């Protein structure tokens, strides 16, 4: 039985971060991209990862800082300096 070497999906998901971080060499990048072309599952996995990163970027976007409280802290500090 011939065991033909190719990237599996299980391997793909482990190197995806390296791919997105530009930490792979040109050979490895080409292998990743060729796999994406033929694999619906991994295409979706990449999209899910991108969506996850986008959501992470939106975490706490509307957080409110207690500006007044901090200003009070600042004035106290300034007043207390020698």
């Amino acid at each position, binding site marked *: 039985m011939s065991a033909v070497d190719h990237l*599996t*999906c*299980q*391997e793909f*998901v*482990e190197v*995806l*971060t*390296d791919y997105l*971080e530009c*930490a792979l060499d040109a050979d490895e990048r080409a292998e990743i991209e060729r796999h994406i072309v033929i*694999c*619906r*599952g*991994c295409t*979706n*996995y990449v*999209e*899910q*990862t991108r*969506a*996850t*990163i*986008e*959501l*992470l*970027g*939106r*975490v*706490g976007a509307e*957080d409110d*800082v*207690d*500006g007044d*409280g*901090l*200003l009070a*802290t*600042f*004035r106290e*500090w*300034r007043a207390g*300096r020698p």
Partner: protein
Amino acid sequence: MQPVAIPSGRRPDNEDELVAALRRGDEAAFVELVERYGAMLLRLARTFVRDQAVAEEVVQETWLAVLNGIERFEGRSSLKTWIFQILSNRAKTRAIRERRSAPFSTLGGDGADEAAVDADRFRDESHRWAGHWAAAPADWTQLPEERLLGQETLARVNEAIQTLPPRQAEVLALRDVEGWEPAEVCAALGISDGNQRILLHRARAKVRAALEHYLSEGAAA
């Protein structure tokens, strides 16, 4: 460097100016700093201590420590990194005191030998497509945007961050929530680029998995 005379009301915007102005007790400089980093510190504090009220206290203490320490700031790291490190130290000390570590995380553990995706999602060795998806991930581009990017989904993302091992949570928060560059994160945490990438990889994998679980609930087959 000669102190620069700054007309009152105008905020200094480069870092050297900011530090100098702060040392002079310039309120506008402090306001500028809070505007730049205030929300970031609050979000990061919550990664460490979970409880909102405790996080706010930690942030308050951090700003005071920044003011008290500004004279000694040497500029060897960026101001942002230095402020972050103050927060990180305070938050971790506080977290230990409050015993708020997540139930399953080990302090300092970063999950050796974790797989990004459970092995049972892939075909086993006997299959002609060994290692390929047995249950492929769904196409999220087909989800309505309000569901994918809605408030409840965001809440789930937050929950997922809270369950990460501390070192993974830290890297994920700095890279993907706060948008720091890899080099900044490595400098701030004193870790190598490779190490940073592994932690990021595992953290992202867990959050994706949590999201996948949430978004597939009640979905049509």
